[in-house]
C-alpha cells in the first residue's frame, strides 16, 4: 500500500500546537508532522509532545509575520500531500488557513469541535448561528484543511526525550509583504470569562452596587470569577462590559455557573446554558432561570449568601 499520508499540524502558539498534535494522533493512527514558526526551540519541543517529525519554517520575531510563511507552507503541502492539515484557530491561524486553502483551490472547515471517521470519510462537527445549531459536514477535498480552537483536545504529557527528526524548510518569498511598523502589547483582558472554570453571576436581584462585596466574597470562597447580567454592566455600570454574560456579551462553558438574583432572560441563558452545573438563587420561584438550574434555591440572597460563605469556610 502507498506510504500512508501524514497529518500535519500548524500553530504559532506552542500550547495550541501541542493540543493539535494530541488531536492529530486520534485521527486514524497516521504519522503526525508539526510545522513550526517562531522560536527554533518550539520545533524541538513539538517532538516531545507526540509529533513523529517536526519542520521549522522560520522565526517571526523580527520583520517576518506569521502570514509571510503561507507560500512556504503551500509549497510543502503540495509536495508532501498530507491527508489532513489542522491549524490552530487563532486570528493569525485563520488567516494562514484561509489564504493557504485559496492557493490550493481548497477550503477550510472552521472551528471544528469533533472529528469522526466513518468508512473512508472524515466527518466534522462545528457550531453555526452563534451556537444555535450544530452542523455536521463530510470533508471532500484533499487535503482536509481544518481550524481547531483551544480546549478541543488535551495535550499529551511531554515525553522525556524528543523522538523523530527535525528539519528546516527553505523560505519561499511571498508575492507581497505588509511592512511591520510596530508591535504594541495588547492590554490583557481583565478577565477571561470564556476560560473560567467557575463563575458567580450577579443579577438584578442585587439592590446596591455595594452588595457586589458579598458576590466577591462568595467568589473568593469558591475560587470563581465574578460576572453579571446585561443590566448591571450596560444599564447600571456596576461592572465593566466584558464581565456580562449574554448574547452580545461573553459565552461561557464553566464547570459551575452560580446565578445570584438572576431572573434568566433568554438573551442571558444563551450565554451560559452550556455550563456543566448550574445553581440559581432567586427570591421569585417562577424566575425562568430555575428551569435551567440543576440546583435551585428560592429565598432572600441577603440571608442565604452570608450563610453559604460561612458553610463553605467551615467545611473540614
Amino acid at each position: 500500500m502507498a506510504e500512508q499520508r501524514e497529518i500535519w499540524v500548524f500553530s504559532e502558539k506552542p500550547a495550541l500546537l501541542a493540543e493539535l498534535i494530541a488531536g492529530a494522533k486520534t485521527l486514524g493512527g497516521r504519522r503526525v508532522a508539526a510545522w513550526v514558526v517562531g522560536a527554533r526551540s518550539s520545533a524541538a519541543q513539538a517532538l516531545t509532545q507526540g509529533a513523529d517529525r517536526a519542520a521549522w519554517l522560520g522565526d517571526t520575531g523580527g520583520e517576518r509575520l506569521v502570514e509571510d510563511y503561507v507560500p512556504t507552507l503551500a509549497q510543502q503541502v503540495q509536495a508532501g500531500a498530507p491527508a489532513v492539515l489542522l491549524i490552530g484557530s487563532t486570528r493569525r491561524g485563520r488567516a494562514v488557513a484561509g489564504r493557504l486553502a485559496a492557493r490550493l483551490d481548497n477550503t477550510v472547515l472552521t472551528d471544528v469541535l469533533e472529528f469522526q471517521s466513518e468508512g473512508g470519510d472524515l466527518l466534522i462537527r462545528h457550531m453555526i448561528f452563534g451556537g444555535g445549531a450544530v452542523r455536521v459536514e463530510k470533508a471532500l477535498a484533499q487535503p482536509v484543511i481544518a481550524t481547531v480552537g483551544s480546549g478541543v483536545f488535551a495535550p499529551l504529557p511531554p515525553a522525556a526525550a524528543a523522538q523523530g527528526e527535525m528539519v528546516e524548510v527553505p523560505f519561499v518569498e511571498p508575492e507581497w509583504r505588509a511592512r511591520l511598523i510596530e508591535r504594541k502589547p495588547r492590554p490583557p483582558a481583565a478577565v477571561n470569562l470564556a476560560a473560567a472554570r467557575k463563575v458567580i453571576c450577579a443579577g438584578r436581584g442585587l439592590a446596591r452596587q455595594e452588595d457586589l462585596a458579598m458576590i466577591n466574597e462568595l467568589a473568593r470562597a469558591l475560587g470563581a470569577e465574578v460576572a453579571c447580567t446585561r443590566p448591571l454592566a450596560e444599564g447600571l455600570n456596576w461592572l465593566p462590559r466584558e464581565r456580562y454574560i449574554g448574547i452580545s456579551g461573553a459565552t461561557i462553558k464553566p464547570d459551575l455557573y452560580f446565578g445570584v438574583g438572576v431572573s434568566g432572560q433568554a438573551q442571558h441563558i444563551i450565554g451560559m446554558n452550556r455550563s456543566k452545573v448550574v445553581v440559581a438563587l432567586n427570591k421569585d420561584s417562577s424566575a425562568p432561570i430555575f428551569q435551567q438550574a440543576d440546583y435551585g434555591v428560592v429565598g432572600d440572597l441577603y440571608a442565604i449568601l452570608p450563610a453559604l460563605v460561612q458553610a463553605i469556610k467551615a467545611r473540614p
Partner: protein
Amino acid sequence: MNIIVCVKFTPDAGDIQVNSDGSISLERAEWGIGSFDLQAVEAGARLAEATGGKVMALSAGPRQINHSKLKKDLLSRGPDELYLVVDDALQDAGTAATARVLAGAIGKLGPFDLVLCGEGSADLYFQQVGLQLGEMLGLPTLNAIRKIETAADGLRVERDLDDEIEVLAVPMPAVLAVTTDVHEPRLPTMKEILKAGKKPVTEWTLADLGLSGGLAKHSAVVSIRAPHQVQRKNIRIEGSPEEAAQALVGYLNKEGLI
C-alpha cells in the same frame, strides 16, 4: 479611494424554529444584513468620504437576497452602488465557493483601491471569505483589522491579535477583514433611506460571471440540528438560610466543585 465592501445577507438566527425531531427550520426567518458586516460598510463609507471616492457594495446569495427591503437597507448606510450575484446555487455555499463568486464579480467592477469584509457572517461566522477572496485576487490580505488610516505609501492598519497589536503598512489595492471595533455602524437616516431607493443596483447570475459550470464542492453538509439541550436536575433546595446553605455545600461537594 474606490472601495468595495462585501456583505452577506443572512436569515436572523433569532428566528430559528426547532422542529420536534431536532432539525431546524428557517423559512419564516427574517433576512437582513449580517450584523458583523455593518462595521465594514461603515469603515468603507468613512474612508470614501475622507478620500473622495465611491463605495461599491457587493453581495452574493440565493434569491432571498434580491428583495427591495434588503437592497434599500444596505444602500442607506453609505454605499453609492450595489452589485448582487443572485443564484439559488449559492444556497448553503461554502466559504471557498462564495469567495470564488465574489472574486468573479470584482473582476467585472471598475478600478478599486480596497476591498473590505466583515469579521465573519452572522449565520456561519467562519471568518474565512475575506481571506480566501484576497488570496484568490492575489492581493495583500489581512484580517483582525481594527483601525485603517491612509498614508503616503498605502494604508496604515492595526491588527488586533490574540496576544498583541501589529501596526502595519499595507500596499494598495488590498483586501482587509475588519473587526467590530473598527467603527460604530451608523443608523440609517430618513433622507438616506429615501435616497437609497434611487441608487443603481446591478444584478448578475453565475452565468454572467462565467461560473455557471458549477462551483467546486469541498464539503457536503450531512446534518444541521439544534444543540442537544443539557437535561437539568431541577433540584429545589428548601429550608432556612442555614439549612439551604448546608444542603448546597453538600451538593457542590458531591459535584466535586469545592
